[in-house]
């Protein structure tokens, strides 16, 4: 009967693990549903507001000190001597979600490695696991924010927005980049790195993918796409009421806030789906392992019985 005990113990432990992963899968699924609801709701709003930012960035030239700096930095870049950039990095708080965190961090690394030295990158972490980026690529950590697992409202990102806008206006950074995972569907999530400030109009595809790749993009997009696209390059003279200064002062930070909030929601939805998938796979793997171990166990047991019978038979033969 040698070995059966050990195998039995292993089966038991794998079964326990399976229970845990199963439970985690269920929890992730429940959270995912909520996160997805939230992300789909705000997508139209976020993509519309991003379009407005882009159009404004084209139309506005020197209307407003804050805005010119925020929006038309293309011309002003020489005034900003800083070679530093800030990256708002969205990761999860906990592990066990497959490649979720490493995907986004690798994507970030790939995107910026050719243009920026790692000591010039300041990370603004949202989510505990972002520390890995610091450990691996020697980026500095500028700030770390607690990421709510279920986002309750735009208030969640207000401190981040304030920090970013303040530092950007002070000329501390020449670029603000936002790295998050875009939720496409339950099985597919895309890590994305997008430039938030200065608003970059020329890279249209960069922004298009970000906010509204998903089931409902067709509806929100088709409306906007055809006409304004062409007009983006025309001179789009806007009237501002009451005054450009007042309107933009209020509007631009708000629109940036929406972008960051959307990134948080996308990231949350992606995280929970990634975790669900990972846990599902773990559960499946545990089932496979149990089957295999049971087979081995039965074989060993049978071998033991056969050996015993053979021994008894041999004993009887010897006595005769």
């Amino acid at each position, binding site marked *: 009967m040698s070995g059966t005990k050990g195998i039995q113990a292993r089966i038991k432990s794998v079964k326990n693990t399976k229970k845990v992963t199963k439970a985690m899968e269920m929890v992730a699924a429940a959270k995912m549903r909520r996160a997805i609801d939230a992300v789909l*709701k*705000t997508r*139209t*709003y976020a993509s*519309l*507001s991003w379009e*407005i930012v882009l*159009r*404004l960035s084209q*139309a506005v030239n020197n209307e407003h000190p804050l805005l010119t700096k925020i929006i038309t930095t293309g011309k002003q870049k020489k005034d900003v001597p800083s070679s530093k950039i800030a990256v708002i990095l969205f990761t999860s708080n906990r592990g066990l979600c497959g490649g979720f965190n490493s995907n986004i961090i690798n994507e970030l690394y790939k995107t910026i490695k050719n243009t920026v030295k790692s000591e010039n990158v300041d990370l603004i972490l949202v989510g505990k696991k972002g520390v890995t980026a610091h450990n691996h690529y020697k980026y500095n950590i500028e700030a770390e924010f607690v990421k709510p697992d279920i986002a309750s409202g*735009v208030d969640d990102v207000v401190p981040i927005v304030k920090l970013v806008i303040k530092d950007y206006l002070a000329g501390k950074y020449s670029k603000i980049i936002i790295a998050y995972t875009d939720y496409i569907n339950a099985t597919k999530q895309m890590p994305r790195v997008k430039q938030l400030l200065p608003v970059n109009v020329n890279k249209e595809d960069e922004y298009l993918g970000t906010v509204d790749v998903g089931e409902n993009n067709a509806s929100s997009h088709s*409306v906007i796409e055809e*006409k*304004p696209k062409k*007009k983006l390059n025309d001179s*789009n*003279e*806007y*009237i*501002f*009421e*009451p005054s450009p200064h*007042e*309107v933009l002062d*209020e*509007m631009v930070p*708000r629109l940036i806030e*929406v972008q960051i*909030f959307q990134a948080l929601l996308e990231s949350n939805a992606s995280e929970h789906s990634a975790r669900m998938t990972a846990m599902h796979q773990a559960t499946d793997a545990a089932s496979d392992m149990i089957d295999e171990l049971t087979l081995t166990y039965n074989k060993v047991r049978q071998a033991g019985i056969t050996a015993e019978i053979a021994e008894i038979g041999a004993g009887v033969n010897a006595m005769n």
Partner: protein
Amino acid sequence: MSNLTIQFEIVTPERVILSEQITQVVVPTKAGEITILPNHIPLVSSLTPGVIIAKKEDGSDVIMAMSGGFVEVLHGKVVILADTAERADELDEERIVEAREVAKKAKEEVKHVDREQFANISAKLQKELARERALKKWRKL
């Protein structure tokens, strides 16, 4: 004029309230109420809590309560990014009156406490007032 229309969209972070072809829309901006007709010059403005009235192609009005946001007018298109908004036909009067009373009370209580809190509550009160106005307008139709 009547065959000219504007593509009108009003969205909040929660949902799309209305997306339709309309012939005109009245919005409350910070500088006062304005009516946007087809071929309006491009305009960006911030909005105060108030009532939005959109006239549909068939001549009927859609009345909405909105609690602040932005409006962007493009050629043949109006986009409103509202913080919150509801259509008047979805509003429930009793609840509004109740909410307004609560907001009023709260406003009086904290008047001399905290500026930020005060601003929050004022905004809430304005929102409820806007809702009520929207509802009244809708009733009159």
